């Protein structure tokens, strides 16, 4: 049971002088990560709609134009293909553009530039040109929004070779991973769980930037009976499910994938060989989703360790529903518990 004192520690907002950590919301953690990357490398620049004086519709770029100027924080015309297409040209000239797509559902005008150009130029030029472009996309639902503002299109990009597709689940990872994404010579689709933007957590602003976090899944809760695999907004759902399972005497391990391209198969396999059961959770539709790929890999590699088929909990093969019905669509703790029960019933 969480005590009041522990809660205070994670929501105080004051830097902890001993550890060098501070408490930040996920959106502010991305903001600080962008700031750190821009201070480190003057080729890093931001492009997007309303990211200047407004600071972005989610305020993720708040204060950055004031610090770095209009040449490095660019309020672009309202044209997503144009944002990504010009970012490609800027990358060819030696810049490291970070594009903001305002909402998940607005990435599609840029889909052609991302999949036919950004993803392929390194290969097309036999490695002569690299594409250090980051595309930040607030994604996912649960915020009561109108059409096109709650979707999870990550699988469409994971299906395209040449792109890296990642999603942080917490402020510390958001701070670290955005810097790693910017440092990557490969294009990175950076999916930010907008439903978790306001969730606060401890962030060590001194965390070194490597590439480990970007590609490596992390066991965020150890357990022995079932592996819950999740990323982005669904990690919180998995953790809550694990709490509920613990109350029932079942021990769940929770794995935060962090990336779906590449998928850290080794980490998933190691966990499932231990637990014998696997449930994958994501907000994106289950049909042809990341869970299908994970299920196939786990089945191939852990067949004799499995006590039950790999099960998936996620969105339906419907358009993202109206806000009044989104609770039916999103993977809830209840639906994950139901899947775990089915896994144990085998």
């Amino acid at each position, binding site marked *: 049971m969480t005590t009041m004192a522990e809660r205070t520690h994670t929501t105080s907002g004051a830097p902890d002088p001993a550890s060098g950590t501070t408490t930040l919301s996920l959106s502010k953690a991305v903001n600080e990560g962008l700031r750190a990357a821009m201070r480190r490398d003057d080729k890093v620049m931001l492009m997007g709609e309303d990211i200047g004086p407004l600071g972005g519709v989610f305020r993720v770029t708040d204060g950055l134009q004031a610090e770095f100027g209009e040449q490095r924080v660019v309020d672009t015309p309202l044209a997503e293909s144009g944002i990504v297409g010009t*970012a490609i*040209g800027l990358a*060819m000239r030696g810049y490291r553009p970070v594009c903001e797509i305002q909402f998940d559902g607005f990435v599609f005008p840029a889909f052609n530039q991302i999949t036919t150009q950004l993803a392929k130029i390194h290969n097309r030029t036999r*490695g*002569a040109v690299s594409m250090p472009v980051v595309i930040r996309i607030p994604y996912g639902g649960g915020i009561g929004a109108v059409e096109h503002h709650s979707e999870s299109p990550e699988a469409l990009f994971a299906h395209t070779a040449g792109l890296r597709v990642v999603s942080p689940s917490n402020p510390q990872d958001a701070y670290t991973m955005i810097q790693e994404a910017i440092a990557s010579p490969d294009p990175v689709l950076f999916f930010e769980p907008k439903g978790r933007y306001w969730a606060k957590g401890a962030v060590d602003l001194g965390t070194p930037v490597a590439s480990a976090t970007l590609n490596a899944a992390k066991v965020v809760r150890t357990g022995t009976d079932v592996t819950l695999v999740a990323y982005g907004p669904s990690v919180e759902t998995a953790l809550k499910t694990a709490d509920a399972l613990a109350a029932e005497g079942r021990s769940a391990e929770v794995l935060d994938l962090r990336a779906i391209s*590449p998928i850290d198969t080794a980490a998933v396999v190691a966990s499932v060989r231990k637990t014998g059961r696997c449930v994958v959770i994501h907000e994106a539709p289950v049909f042809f989703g990341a869970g299908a790929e994970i299920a196939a890999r786990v089945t191939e590699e852990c067949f004799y360790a499995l006590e039950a088929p790999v099960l998936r909990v996620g969105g339906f093969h419907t358009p993202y529903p109206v806000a009044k019905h989104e609770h039916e669509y999103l993977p809830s703790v209840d639906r994950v518990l139901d899947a775990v029960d089915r896994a144990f019933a085998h």
Partner: protein
Amino acid sequence: MTTTNGSNEAIPTLQLLDPLGNRVTTRGTKGYRDRAAALTAEDLRGMYRDMVLTRRFDEEATSLQRQGELALYAPARGQEAAQVGSAYALRPQDFVFPSYREHGVLQVRGVDPVDRLRFFRGSDHGGWDPNEHNANVYTVVIGAHTLHAAGYAMGVQRDGTPHDKHDGTAVITYFGDGATSQGDVNESMVFAAVNDAPVVFFLQNNQWAISEPTAKQSKTPLYQRGAAFGMPSLRVDGNDVLAVYAATQEALERARMGEGPSFIEAFTYRMGAHTTTDDPTRYRTTEQDEEWRRRDPIDRLAALLRAEGELDEDFEAQVKEAEAELGAHLRSGVRALDGGVPVSTFDDVYATPHGVVAAERAWYEAYEAGDPPTPQYAIADTAQGGAR
């Protein structure tokens, strides 16, 4: 300064050399005439040579395709003046974003003719290092590269390159009449215009987007598009190498001096097929082909050179020899392309190791060696990217 567009609608068009090869001295064109007049006899002979070599390249590539040595080829026949004339106005520091038909531009840019056919042979998706020639590889998705040009030009602005008509840096992008209907081309002009980016939009209106005439793309003359976005816009006779050169030089200098983008419509004609798989007899008349054959850009420059005493037997022999060398180089070079360093499907997908690709490469290599591990996606894709 006026010719017709084939539909008898008079559209202002810059012309400095008429179809018979006579220099034209229309009122209001003195600035352009001065630019053309600054070309030396040696310059004009160089342009002629590169135009002839571009056509020879077309003929050789088409033959190689017919012999099964190329998967496909997209000829530039008829567009030699538009391509060579504009490329002659470039300086080394300028950067070119071509579509996939700019063989004449790349000829002037010094890209090896064999490298230009790697793509069409199916041995490469590109063929050369863009930074080696300041010329990007071909882009096949229509109009997508015009945005890359606008972005590259925005980068030039941020580099703080000098604003100077010789030492500044300009970007030029080539696209066709069909591409003007693409959203990306329009978006690229928005981005370039509002940023005053140093880029020249060079439209080759060859009147045919595969089988669709320009009337299927636009109700208005295409050169007006540039003006609508707020940039200087000019229509030139695309088969007149002098007009193309002068107009492009002016636009490039404007860009290098930091005065923003320009739009040029070079009105020309695709004398050949769209590609080697196309059959133009299904959609256009031989009369139209014949009319444009009389306006052949190479014949026109040859007539000028002849009239000015610059096309002597010695020079013609030199050009013939260069053509023969090009043909021999292509025929042997293209066939030898497959004998180079073996490259793998799995190379250069990512710049840093990616677990999925690494695992699939390892599996495939074992499979080829007759020792496939199971399962197929053995867990080489470990946390740090899966290099093993």
